Each structure stands twice: as structure tokens, then as C-alpha cells.
């Protein structure tokens, strides 16, 4: 019974929290750059405003263009529901699996790229092709990380990995450090943050995500933006859950445990959000032709993580 309740809380939590996380990162960045910046809850107002507005659609757009925002948002939301944030005691936890997570995110990405190509503008096609370039490099890296984690813990289910780590079975492993570094690089690429893509730009030749969704307006744009926000929250939660699971409530922890887990999750989210803002402020955007090096680096780190497992005989 509790499991259903916590799952419902989780489903609402990720959506309710996502705009705040994005707004917080923007606010910290503005502060670091010497601006006052909009309040952290500004994204809620933006989404509300977009939902009020009329959606304008190009004449050449097909049903794919109209369906894509909803499919993208739904797949990202579903993915966010299976990452344990504050408790592992959830209905969907047994079904949750890192490989399924990668697949769900790929579905969202695929539809966004389709929508980018659908209206036939040059920017859309450009963005879609770059997005696929990033995906073709980021997904193998993500799978490599998954493999090294599952070699350590013997499972690909996030809930079981958390249980394994919290039981004290894992020391400070070189492999986990490498996997963490790779994971951070993948997360940066997948969320279109600096140095891969600039989330604050609207008209620049190097933009990737914005180029694909340039044609959207009104409620469709609200869905696209919300999906991006949920994805950022998802990756922050995933990193916090896999590499710093302390505080997450286990099955049987009760309401107090869940509340503590919630507090720990909020703390971890804001720490990671601040680190992201600091990182983005201190680094410059990368040339498009260097993406392959950056993400190839993530893939190689994932590979090294797996190799070192065999040396330290953790397998």
C-alpha cells in the first residue's frame, strides 16, 4: 500500500520540482555572472504563460509535429518515475532498470529529432542531425556506465544498486570514480548544457536543442520545455541516487524515513545544481567538431571503469 503512495508522490514530485531545479540553476548562474537574475520560481510562470498562449503551427507540419511534445514529455516523465529519488519502496521499482531508462530517454530524443525535421526548416534538420550525433556517442557511454555499475552490484535495477551500496558492500572504488566522471559528462551532453550546448541561447549557429524546437509555440513549447526540465532533474536524481545514495529510504523505513529521504534528496539536488551552475559559468562552449572527443572521452572512461573492475578483482 505504501509502495503505491510513495510512487504517486514520486510521480508528482519530479514534475513539481523540475521547474524549480532549472530556475535555481539559472538563478545561481545569474548571480555568479554578476546579474540579479530571475527568481528561481520563474520557470513556473513561464510554463503557465506558455500554456495560456495560442499554439502556432507551420502549414507544412504533419501530425508528428503535434504529437512529438507530448510523446517526449511522457517518455521523460516515465523515465523520471523509475529513478528512486527519496525512497526505493515504490511500485515501479522492480520494473525499473537502467537499460530501460536509457531506452525511454532515447524515445524522447528520437521524437524531438523527428519533430525538428518534420517542418522542413534548415535549423530543425541541423539540430536533429547534431542531436543524433550526440546521442550516438552518449548512449554507448551511458550503457558502459550501466555495465560497470552492474558488474559491481550484480544488478541493473537502481533500487537494488542503492540497497547494495547502502548495505556497505562497496568501498571507495576506482571504477566508481571513473563511472561517476563518465556519468557527469553524459549528463552534461544529454541535457544540452555548456560545453556541449548552451541552454540560454535562442539564435546561434551552434545551438542543438533549441534549433530542433525553434518552431514550437504555446502549449507545445510548454511541453518541450517541461520535458527538458524534468530531464535535468532526472539526471541530477540519477547521479545522486547511484553515486551518493545515503539518506534514501529503504522498504520498511516508514513515513519518517521517507521524509528524511526527501530532505536528503532536496539537499543533494541543490548541491548538484549549484555545482552545475558553477561549472557552466567557469567553462566556455565547445566547438561542434569537438563533441566526438568529449563524448568519446566519456565512453573511454566507462570502458576504463569496467577494465579496472577486473584488476581490483571486485568482480
Amino acid at each position: 500500500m505504501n509502495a503505491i503512495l510513495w510512487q504517486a508522490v514520486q510521480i508528482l514530485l519530479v514534475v513539481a520540482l523540475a521547474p524549480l531545479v532549472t530556475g535555481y540553476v539559472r538563478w545561481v548562474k545569474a548571480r555568479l555572472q554578476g546579474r540579479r537574475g530571475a527568481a528561481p520560481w520563474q520557470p513556473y510562470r513561464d510554463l503557465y504563460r506558455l500554456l495560456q498562449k495560442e499554439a502556432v503551427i507551420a502549414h507544412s507540419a504533419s501530425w508528428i509535429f503535434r504529437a512529438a511534445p507530448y510523446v517526449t514529455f511522457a517518455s521523460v516523465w516515465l523515465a523520471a518515475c523509475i529513478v528512486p529519488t527519496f525512497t526505493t519502496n515504490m511500485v515501479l521499482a522492480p520494473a525499473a532498470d537502467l537499460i530501460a531508462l536509457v531506452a525511454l530517454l532515447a524515445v524522447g530524443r528520437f521524437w524531438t529529432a523527428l519533430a525538428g525535421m518534420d517542418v522542413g526548416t534548415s535549423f530543425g534538420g541541423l539540430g536533429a542531425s547534431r542531436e543524433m550525433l550526440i546521442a550516438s556517442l552518449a548512449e554507448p557511454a551511458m550503457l558502459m556506465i550501466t555495465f560497470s555499475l552492474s558488474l559491481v552490484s550484480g544488478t541493473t535495477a537502481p533500487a537494488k544498486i542503492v540497497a547494495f551500496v547502502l548495505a556497505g558492500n562497496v568501498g571507495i572504488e576506482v571504477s566508481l570514480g571513473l563511472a561517476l566522471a563518465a556519468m557527469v559528462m553524459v549528463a552534461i551532453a544529454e541535457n544540452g548544457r555548456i560545453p556541449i550546448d548552451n541552454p540560454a541561447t535562442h539564435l546561434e549557429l551552434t545551438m542543438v536543442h533549441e534549433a530542433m524546437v525553434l518552431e514550437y509555440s504555446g502549449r507545445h513549447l510548454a511541453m518541450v520545455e517541461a520535458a527538458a526540465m524534468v530531464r535535468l532533474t532526472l539526471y541530477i536524481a540519477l547521479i545522486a541516487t547511484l553515486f551518493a545514495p545515503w539518506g534514501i529510504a529503504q522498504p520498511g523505513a516508514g513515513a519518517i524515513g521517507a521524509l528524511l529521504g526527501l530532505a536528503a534528496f532536496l539537499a543533494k539536488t541543490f548541491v548538484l545544481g549549484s555545482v552545475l551552475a558553477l561549472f557552466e559559468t567557469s567553462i566556455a562552449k565547445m566547438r561542434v567538431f569537438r563533441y566526438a572527443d568529449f563524448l568519446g572521452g566519456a565512453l573511454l572512461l566507462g570502458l576504463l571503469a569496467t577494465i579496472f573492475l577486473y584488476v581490483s578483482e571486485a568482480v
Partner: protein
Amino acid sequence: MSQQFSYDIAHLIGATVLMAGFGLLYQRRVFAVLNTFAFQAVALAAAAAWQAHVQHAPHLYVTAAIALLFKAMAVPFALHWLIEKLGIHRTVETALSIGWTMIVGVALVALSIMLVLPVTAAASALTRESLALAMSVVLLGMLMMITRRNAVTQVVGFMALENGLILAAVSAKGMPLVVEISIAFSVLVAMTVFGIFFFRIRERFDSLDVAYLESYRGDRS
């Protein structure tokens, strides 16, 4: 503090040195290479200091201090000064593309692991891991020397190789201080020789690209 924990920390620092080795291969700006090298030296100093603490071997603190003073400060500053003085190209010129270099780098790490595993079959898993790490750093330094065309970056590769040797030395118990000090000073001497060497190549070819040396057949003028 348990035995396991101290080994874990040692390996984590060792892995940081290795990652800095990959960072050296990844950078495309000469100054960024120097910063990464300084970071690697700081990580090496941390590794030596940690071993000094764990093994209760005070002389390793001297090693750490040498690494911190000479390799993290003196050498990068000197190279920085040289680059400004000689007005060298600020981009790293590679003989092999960065992506391929990284792939070869990972292959070298795998190779060093495969070499270390049978040789140290009798040793514990912990020694094995530190040896594999140190050997990878050495091989990455060699790779850097091979794949860079500019003399400055080749020198950084040489210094990185030497970092790997020190890393291996501090992980093994009972390395005498005399050896370490002599290594440290030979590196400084090498640094001086390289410096003079830079000025000479530069005078003759107006560039530090070592490819010019290949076709050079002595002074004929």
C-alpha cells in the same frame, strides 16, 4: 582507520593521476596542457603524502614536497615563461587525432593491466592495482611524447612519464630517499637541457616543430 580504506584512498589518488594523464592527451592548448600537468603533479604529491602517512615513512613527505615544488610549480612556470618568451604557437599540434590518441591510450591501459596481472600473480590485488595504474601513467606519457609534434608538449609528456615512475616508487615499500632525490634533480637537469635545446631549435628553424629536425642534415652553410 582500516587497511582497506587506506588502500582505497591511495588507488583513488592514483586514478586521479591517471585521469590527468588522459587530460594531457585531450587538451588542445599549450597552456591548458601545462595546467593539467601541474594538476597531475599536485595529485602525485597527494599520493606521496598519503603513502607517507600510511606507511609511516617520513622521507616520502620529502618526495611529496619535491613533487609539489618542482613539478607542480617550477616546471610549469618555467615552460610558461619559455612559451611566452619564444612566442610559440598556442595550439597543440598532433601527429594523430585526439580521438585516436585517446583510444590508443585506453588500449595502453588495458595492455599494462594485462602485463601486470601475470607478473604479479603472487602479489595481492592491491599492489597489482597500484602497479597497473603507475604503468599506465608511464605508457600514456610515452604516447604523448610520440603523438605531439611540438617540443614543449613532448617535454610535458616526458615529465608525465616520470610522474608515473614516482607513482610506482611511492606505492612500493622501501624506496630509498637518495634514489628519489637523484631522480628529482635529474629531471631538473633535463629541464634545463630541454630549455637550452628549445632556444637552439628555435634559433635555427624559427619553430619548435620537431619535424624540421628530420630533414636537417647538419650545418652546411
